[in-house]
């Protein structure tokens, strides 16, 4: 990934004499020392914590009679206290990796406690409500410790809530408040990510919102909804990616996520519009729109944002295949459509190459004197 590319490029620049070898080595050492860098040992620790948590959860589910249930309850509360205190002590000793694992175990023990009480008193209420309480507890742990690991657990639990609603068939009805709780949970996770600096856990929240929107559309399909998805996505993407947009600096600071997810949303919207479109004109318009959005993404954000670029390629290729198989009116008509779009894209490419060439010449002039 990035680490590998960085090392390769440094070697290239050192070879060209642009960068002293000592500086390159120092820069790599600085990168490796960062908190956010992937460390196999730390990740394995947290995965081990998840396995142990699964064992605790299943021990509760087994409803084992050898242990009286009051003893089980006291045991679970003991685990909650033990893991929180262990996390605190490990943090004080500066052992962040082990502390993260302990806090994951602490939040999972709280979930086991909720399940145990539900079992003790035969609560036949919905599992989704229990997960909400669990999320609240996990949020407290994440906030109190500013723990990125606990935030990630929250993100996973938000998904668990969404999937539980899906499996219980409770979602999609716009009237029900549970439906609106899913994006609210995503917002909570994003806030936690900002506060705890959990970085990658933000994707759990973004993906949750996307999945939720798609599900909402499947349950309430309408042309207006599809148009809103497409329009909202394209506006958000333009706000994040068009040079000169007031929101662009903020979006760039947040990394590649804002541009990528708004782009994905726009693509989903236009794909859904294509599904809604009927008649030849509608089909041609929808097909052209998907192709234009894909090109727009590649042209506007492709240079800085690899994720947008590859999603754009994939959408472009997928749409080409779809149109070729779907046939717009007749094969001759589809061929004509591709002929016109091919010529148009070639003309745009010629323009873009000229603009890029001029930009590069001015930049070289700035650097060389």
């Amino acid at each position: 990934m990035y680490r590998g590319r960085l090392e390769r490029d440094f070697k290239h620049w050192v070879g060209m004499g642009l960068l002293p070898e000592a500086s390159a080595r120092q820069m790599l050492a600085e990168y490796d020392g960062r908190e956010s860098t992937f460390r196999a040992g730390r990740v394995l620790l947290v995965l081990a914590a998840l396995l142990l948590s699964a064992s605790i959860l299943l021990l509760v589910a087994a409803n084992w009679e050898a242990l009286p249930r009051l003893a089980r309850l006291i045991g679970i509360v003991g685990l909650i206290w033990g893991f929180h205190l262990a996390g605190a002590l490990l943090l004080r000793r500066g052992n962040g990796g082990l502390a993260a694992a302990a806090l994951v175990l602490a939040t999972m023990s709280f979930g086991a406690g909720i399940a145990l009480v539900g079992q003790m008193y035969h609560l036949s209420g919905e599992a989704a409500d229990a997960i909400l309480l669990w999320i609240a507890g996990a949020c407290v742990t994440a906030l109190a410790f500013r723990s990125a690991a606990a935030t990630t657990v929250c993100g996973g639990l938000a998904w668990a809530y969404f999937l539980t609603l899906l499996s219980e068939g409770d979602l999609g009805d716009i009237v029900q408040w549970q439906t609106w709780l899913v994006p609210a949970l995503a917002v909570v996770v994003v806030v936690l990510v900002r506060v705890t600096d959990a970085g990658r856990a933000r994707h759990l929240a973004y993906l949750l919102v996307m999945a939720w929107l798609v599900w909402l559309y499947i349950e309430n399909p309408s042309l207006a909804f599809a148009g809103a998805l497409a329009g909202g996505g394209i506006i958000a993407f333009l706000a994040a990616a068009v040079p000169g947009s007031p929101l662009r600096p903020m979006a760039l600071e947040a990394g590649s996520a804002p541009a990528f997810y708004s782009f994905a949303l726009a693509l989903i919207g236009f794909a859904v519009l294509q599904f809604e479109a009927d008649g030849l004109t509608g089909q041609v318009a929808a097909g052209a729109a998907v192709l234009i959005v894909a090109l727009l993404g590649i042209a506007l954000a492709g240079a800085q944002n690899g994720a947008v670029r590859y999603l754009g390629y994939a959408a472009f290729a997928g749409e080409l295949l779809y149109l070729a198989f779907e046939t717009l009116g007749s094969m001759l008509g589809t061929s004509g459509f591709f002929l016109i779009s091919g010529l148009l894209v070639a003309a745009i490419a010629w323009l873009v190459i000229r603009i890029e060439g001029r930009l590069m010449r001015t930049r070289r002039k700035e650097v060389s004197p």
Partner: protein
Amino acid sequence: MTGIAPKRGWLPPLVAALIAAVLQTAALGYMVESRASILRNGKEVLLKTVPVDPRDLLRGDYVILSYDISWLPPALFKGGLPTAPAETAVFVRLAKQPDGFWAAAEASFKPLAPVDDSVVLQSQPFTYYPSSSENPSSINVDYGIERFYVPEGEGRVLEQARNAEALSVSVRINDAGRAQIRQIAVEGTPVYEEPLY
């Protein structure tokens, strides 16, 4: 991406641990006590059940219980039925029958006043859709006592008894109309008696 320098915690770790553990323990304690108080102080009624080993991922094996009072005929609703779909709950007045079991005597979509020798039970919230036919069918409601969790593998006995209609369930109901299973009996002999904690 986010800032390169890691953010520092804002609370001393031990304080953070105390806050999280106390709040989570309090949540569990509240859940326990809210149910145990029904078992301790609720009024007891005996319900008849009518005719798999389902498993819940987190809480384990359970037996599904359905009651006579889970199906309410429209005639019980003396105040009439709502005419528009609504998120609502049903209140059911239970009265003791000569055979010792309690049955629904009256039902309403509005709270029922307490009357001696009867207990008011409140259903779980549900979405009511009015029926368009002349003779609307019975309304199916849940009371939150439809599951009984058993040790792994022990569900069969109860299920056979339930299917033979030999199972009876003692339930305690508090003033707010919330119910809690206290005892399960097969042919009148208690098999599971629930402790307070």
